[in-house]
Each structure stands twice: as structure tokens, then as C-alpha cells.
């Protein structure tokens, strides 16, 4: 589904990704871990097409297409979804209105008829039940005045409605207490399927107790320095990231 090869990227003049290689197949869950400033969030932003980041080298192929040539909205319409670390507040527009606009853009792209307000509200209610989302959330302005946990839950709710093929969760666990973490993880687990891939970016192993990954990759210095199965996350929990840093430095030389 997604094939990243020797990807390098910078923000401003600063090179942040120094050579990422990663393959993700449908149905797989990949965890991307790493210390602060390692580049893991940058990878998430680059995949979603944030204009502040410039790809300087390497290739990213998504479903046979050059992802770097696609606009953010085309990526979304083709099934890429980024759950933001810091979801943006949009006062004045309800979640329901916002999601319907997004949903219908995708339907238009796929040549399917757009859903009207009634039809879409029915869909929203179903999804909110599955994810145990309070229906009042649907009529509140997008993320405005939401608590940290509500914002993250809302991102997962959007994910559930937009049904992407590739979902990227950027530190969705940050700032969540244990109950919110469980709710969010439950939501993600319900959305796992053989057709859908996840890239879960996280600093802590804690989230991976709930969302059990197929692969764990450690990024340091802008590149993947170690890959393994879910047990790698436990090893990181015990040993920290320091033991991997020299390897990163060595490899970068």
C-alpha cells in the first residue's frame, strides 16, 4: 500500500528526515517510536502533505502513485487520514457540518452521490454509537473548547466516519489520561481491518498495550535505526532510547 524509500525532508533549512525506508501493507499496524525531535511527527506530517515540509529526496509510493506529487486533499480523497497531534479548532462550524463536507468531497471523487443532511446524520449517529461518542459532540464547533481527550477522540471519530485506507495517528496518546487512552484505543481497534493500515506514531510504549502493533520501528536522527515486532516496544520501555542513539549517529555518518 505504502512504500517509502530513502525519504529525506526538511523544514526551512533544517533536514529532519535523513533517509526513511518503510513498507506498509494493507491490514498492518506499524508503530513508529522514537525520542523527542527524532523526526517521527515530521514523517506523519510529510505523509499528509503539510506545506511547511519539503521533500528533498527519496520516493513515497502510495497505491502505485507518487504521493509527493499529490495535494493534501487528493491524499485524503485517496484514503490517507492523519489524526493530528494538535487538532485545529474551527469556531463556527459544527462537527457534523465539517464532516459532511469532507465526506462528500470523497464521495464526489469516487463518483458516488453525496449524502444529504438527513442521510449523513444517520451515518454519524451509527458511528458515534460504535465509538461511544456523545451525540452532543456532533453539534459542537470543531474542536472548539474541547478538552485534550475530547479532541483526540474527535480525531478518531473523524477517522471512523471517513474510513481511510491508511490512517496515521500522530501521538494520539499524548495528554490522555488512562480512561481516555482506553476509549481512543478501543475506537482504533474497532476500525482495524484487513483492508486498512495504521501508522501509529508514539513516544511511549503505553499506547501499544492497547493498540498492539505488527511492527515497531524506532526513529532516531531522522531515520529508522531499528525495526522489530511488538516486543521491541517492551524492550524500549525497559531500556529507553539511549542505547539506540549511538547507532543512529553511527549510521548517519
Amino acid at each position: 500500500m505504502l512504500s517509502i524509500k530513502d525519504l529525506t525532508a526538511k523544514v526551512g533549512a533544517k533536514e529532519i528526515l535523513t533517509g526513511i525506508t518503510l513498507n506498509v501493507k494493507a491490514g498492518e499496524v506499524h508503530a513508529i517510536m522514537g525520542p523527542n525531535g527524532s523526526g517521527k511527527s515530521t514523517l506523519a506530517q510529510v505523509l499528509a502533505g503539510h506545506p511547511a515540509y519539503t521533500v528533498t529526496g527519496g520516493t513515497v509510493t502510495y497505491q502505485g502513485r507518487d504521493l509527493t506529487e499529490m495535494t493534501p486533499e487528493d491524499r485524503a480523497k485517496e484514503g490517507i487520514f492523519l489524526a493530528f497531534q494538535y487538532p485545529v479548532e474551527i469556531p463556527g462550524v459544527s462537527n457534523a457540518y465539517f464532516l459532511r463536507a469532507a465526506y462528500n468531497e470523497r464521495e464526489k471523487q469516487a463518483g458516488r452521490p453525496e449524502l444529504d443532511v438527513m442521510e449523513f446524520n444517520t451515518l454519524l449517529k451509527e458511528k458515534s454509537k460504535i465509538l461511544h461518542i456523545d451525540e452532543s459532540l456532533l453539534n459542537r464547533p470543531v474542536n472548539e473548547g474541547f478538552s485534550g481527550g475530547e479532541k483526540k477522540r474527535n480525531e478518531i471519530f473523524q477517522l471512523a466516519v471517513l474510513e481511510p485506507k491508511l490512517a496515521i495517528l500522530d501521538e494520539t496518546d499524548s495528554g490522555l489520561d488512562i480512561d481516555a487512552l482506553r476509549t481512543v484505543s478501543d475506537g482504533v481497534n474497532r476500525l482495524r481491518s484487513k483492508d486498512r493500515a495504521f501508522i501509529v506514531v508514539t513516544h511511549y510504549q503505553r499506547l501499544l498495550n492497547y493498540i498492539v502493533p505488527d511492527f515497531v520501528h524506532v526513529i532516531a536522527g531522522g531515520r529508522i535505526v531499528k525495526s522489530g515486532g511488538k516486543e521491541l516496544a517492551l524492550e524500549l520501555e525497559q531500556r529507553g532510547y539511549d542505547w539506540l542513539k549511538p547507532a543512529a549517529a553511527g549510521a548517519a555518518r
Partner: protein
Amino acid sequence: MSGAVAEMPMVKGCWPAHLDAFEKSPGWSAVPWAVGLRKRGSAAFHERGFPTTDDEDWRYTSVQALAATAFRQSLAARADALVSSTAKMFGFGLEGGPRIVLVDGFFSPELSDLTALPKGVRAGGLLRAMTAEKARVETHLGEIAPPSFSAFAALNAALFQDGAFLDVPAGVKVETPILILHLSHESYLASHPRNLYRVGAGASVQVLEAYASPSCDLYFTNAVTEVDVERGGRLIHGRIESESGNAFHVACTQGRVAEDGLWQSDVAALGAGFFRHDLGARLVGERAEARMFGLTIASGKQHVDHHTAIDHAVPHCPSREYYKAILNGRSRVVFNGKVYVREDAQKTDAKQTNRSLLLSEDARVDTKPQLEIFADDVKCTHGATVGQLDEDMIHYCRTRGMSPAVARGILTYAFARDVLQNFGIPAVKEHLDRSLVQRLLDAGRGA
């Protein structure tokens, strides 16, 4: 350099002639007790003429074009078939409810419908009320918005011939919102409607004062509205400016609120080529509250000027003000928000916010908060922003599949809706939401 300063010639336009002609007509003294007010208005205008941009309150708003236009006087109401079909065009979400309709400044009993109002509520034309309800009108007329307020208030005091009158007696709660519809029909006509709303102790009412025209004529509406909210009374007061794009509209809306009373003003400035609104609230009893919400959507060469003032005269009064503007084309919007907190007005809680969204490089906003605080134990905040759409918001929308144009449209709509959702008459709020959504989506995406 000579020490002498050349005096600017005073500009009075066609108005001395209007004043002169009206003074000789039966209308001038139709209500004898009002002649004094008319004379004060006439004298005040003759004395000061029109303001110039040297005048601090008119610095960003030139009335030159208005002053230079030769308007006709409105002499009598029209109630032909055309007018009656036009009146039905404008409901603003309040179709079928009670309505007071005025045509070119004159109350039209035929087009109005006041049958559904609760007992004791007096509603209709001001001219009739000045005689029939003299005691209820005389004490207020020209007292809350005196002729000395401005050249335009002075002209109105001298030249008004009718307007809307509403009196809700103590304790009466009017459930259905009342539409007060001012229609303008005639090209080059000047009308000076004058409205008076009284809300008695513990009474409550919702009023939508709307100014509309089916034409794109050039004309001039010079309105004055006086509001008196007595102890514990509640007035939700919508005001929609939806006139011809070639119209001039100058309005002076002044109110006073007694203890525990509430006056909420929701202004939607959508029409008129030139619109100036002086909105002022005096909080004269403890815990009296003023709320002012405003949404302006301007395009083309529209000029919209909001001058608001909230006067905290006594302690423990809250006030909230939230004005937003969306500008396209070469439009220009002015916001001046005065908040006075008098020496005695301790524990005042005042908040003012003004935000403007510039969708075009040629549009311009001048915003000026003006807080004058003479008490020391108060909470007063103000904030003003002028800017473009937020890039982070646009990107967020794009990651959800929206094109930049769609995202801009939605964010522009969101910008307006954020203030619109505060509007106090639900049916009007829904009407505006429905009728503005496409215009805002298009404006945002640059269509």
C-alpha cells in the same frame, strides 16, 4: 504662516430646504407637543451642518456623497398592490407572525398584522401613538436619543413623520417575535423613521427591526430608535440592514436599561451601499446588562461604519460585545467601540471583541476600541483582530479532503456563524444561516 485657520464651509445640502418646506406643512405641528422637539432638531442641524472627517467620530466615514445628493421629501405613505406584494417578500424567518410594516417611513395599517399580540401590548405607528398614547410617548421621545446626538439625529427629530411604536406593559411576556419592517420604495426619497420601544418591568419581547428594499434604487433612510428597558425587562432586539446596494442608511439606536434589565442588540449589516450605525446603551440600574452582537458582510464599494457605546453608569453591570466583519472587493468597514465605566461603576464586567476577515487586498478595516475607565475594581477586556483566513485551519480542512477553495468557503462561513450563533431570536438566526451560507461559501472561495 498665517495664524488664521480658514474655516471649512459648513455643508448642509438639500436639508435647509427640506426643513423649511416641512415647517410650513401641516405635518410639522400635527402633534403640537412635538413641535419643541422638531425645533430643537432643526436648530441643531442649522448650527452644526454635516460632520466632516475632521470630526473624530467621522474620521473614517465621509458623508460628502450623501450631503451632495438632492433627495426628495417623503410626503405620504404608499399602499398599492406593488407595495403589498413587496411586503410579503420580506419575512426574515418571522413569516406569519405579528408585524408592523412601514413604507418610506410611514406606518401602514393595511400591511401590518397585530392581531396575535397579548392583551395590553401597544404596537403600531408612532404618529398615532403620539396622540393616542401621549403619556407613554412624550416622556421618552427625543430623551434617549436627543437631537444633539448628531446632525442626523437632529434631522430626524425635525423631519420624522412616523415610525414604529411598541409598548410592552409590566409583566407581559410576548412569546412570538415581532417583525418591524421598514420598506423603501421610491428613488431619491429621504425618509426619517423614528421608533420607540418600551419594555415594562419584568416584561419580555423579541423584536426584529428590518430595513429592506426590493429595488436597487438610490435613497436615504435616516432612522432613530429609542429603547427603554425597565426593571427586570428583557428586549432581544435584532436589526437587519438589507437595503439596496445604492442606498444610504444612517441609524442612531440608543437605549437605557434599568436594574436587572437586559437589552440584546443583534445587528446584521448586509445591505446598503453606505451604512452608519450609532448604537449606544446606558446601563442605569445595577445588574443591568447590555449585549451587542454584530455581523457585517461587505463587498463591492460598500461602506459600513459601526460606532457603538456602552455606558456603565452604576455598579455590578455586565456587558458583552462581539462584532465580526467579512470584507470583499473594495469595501470598507469601520468599528469604533466605546466603553465608559463611570467612577461609581465598581464590579463592572465588560468584554469587547472585534474581528475582521479580509478576503480581498483592496478591502480595508479601521477598528478602534475605546475604553474609558474611571472605577478601579472592574473587569474590562477588549480585543481586535484583522486578518486573512488561518493557514492551519485551511490545511486541516485539506487533510480531510477539501480543496483550498472549499476550505476557504467553509472557514468564511464558520467565521460568520461564530457570531451569528449568539443572535437571540432563533427563527431569525436560522433564516440568516440559511440565506447566507451560499453567499459566504462563495465569498470565501473567491467566486
